[in-house]
């Protein structure tokens, strides 16, 4: 069991991986244990709960975007399942 996922604010529904996390790995956040569902590289976000489509992703106490699909607990939270409320689409 590892604690290598950092929660910035108690309101948050994501934590930040402080090392590469592997599928099946169990992380403990407070008293909650979460099973990692997929490869999560260092620095990327992990869902702490089930986040339904259309729900705000909360990091550091603020909404940083909206879930574009249902995100189960323990999943990678990134551009494939989150959209910004201030940008319209992805591009470079």
């Amino acid at each position, binding site marked *: 069991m590892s604690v290598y996922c950092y929660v910035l604010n108690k309101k948050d529904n994501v934590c930040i991986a402080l090392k590469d996390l592997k599928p099946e790995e169990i992380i403990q956040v407070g008293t909650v244990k979460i099973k990692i569902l997929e490869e999560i590289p260092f620095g990327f976000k992990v869902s702490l709960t089930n986040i339904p489509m259309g729900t705000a992703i909360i990091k550091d106490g603020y*909404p*940083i975007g909206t879930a574009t699909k249902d995100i189960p607990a323990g999943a990678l939270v990134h551009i494939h399942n989150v959209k*910004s409320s201030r940008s*319209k689409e992805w591009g470079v």
Partner: protein
Amino acid sequence: MKMKTFLGYKNENGTYGTRSYVGIIAATSAANSVVRDLSKLMSDTVPIYNPGGRAQYSLDIKTNERLITNIAMNPNFDSVIVVGYDQERTKKIYDMISENYAKEMIYIQGRNTIQTIADALYILEDLVKHATSRYRTNAPLDQLTLAVKCGSSDTTSGLISNPVVGLVADKIVEYGGAVVFGETIEIIGAEEELYKKCANEEICAKISKIISTIDQKASEIGIKNYLTSPDNIAGGLTTIEEKSLGAIKKIGSSKIIDVIGPGAKVTKRGGVTFMHSPSAAPEFMACIAASASNICLFTTGGGNPAGNPVLPVIKVTGNPKTAQIMKANIDVDISHFLESMNIQEAADLVFEELLNVVSGKKTSAEILSQDYLAFPRWGIWPMVGGEDIWT
């Protein structure tokens, strides 16, 4: 930590430099080649190239003049020589540099390139002798103008390196110094948190006007995404809101007491100034050289190498991989604090390095001659924020 002074160069006009250079300032782009040649021939000089300055109009010429002359008045210049092509333009730039700065000028027209270089070298020899004969003396920390910047941001920027730099910024303000930040795009999405830091309603209104104009222009033009760097995404940042919330941590907990335009001087001490400015490093660097900043703390997740020829730029990273791979470009590695998240201890390290650097220690960017400045493009959002911050 109790040290309240640094070793700086006291200028005759009362400002303090952290370096003592001679600036070779191009009045127009036509003088850039001569400026380059002079800087290669004379040590301790800094070439400031001008991308324009001729056949420019309105906002273009106004901002070009403001940038080039405010850079010339940076406290790190013991003196400057303005090099131009024609007499009129050269004299205009020369005259815009205040009388209480040591300045000379020379123009190519009527003299030719070879003669200009020869004549300028004689002038420069005297200026460099003066600039390099000065001694550092105890200087109060309130004479520091600290620019804070993040580049090639990743998750570790908002998590550790920006909060750490924020604590150092608090310390500078506590000592009565000035802190300046900018990168307008990187406050978008973090307005709620940022507005808590405004000293008054007027400050908030000014910033809010800048952001709403950018939002509107972006929508008109069809810009669909503010988070444009692939390295941000590769570093774990998902949206502009996330990036901005992390970015604004670098200003610390002090109040924002002024809002200025790109290339304007910071004039208020004991607080934070917001400068409407681009986030691309070389463009932001030109703006802070003009702002009278004499030190910059630059956090980087991915290892952005940019520096500044006018003032020392200290690179701080919280990313352990970057600290290793980009070791040559990093001054302070705080990645080992990720586990303990002891940001106060990390801030002590950064503050100590800052005191060393402003007292003469060279940064990685200085040693590696990372000295490229680019003048900002106004392009798609001219006059954002209104006339008052541009003139």
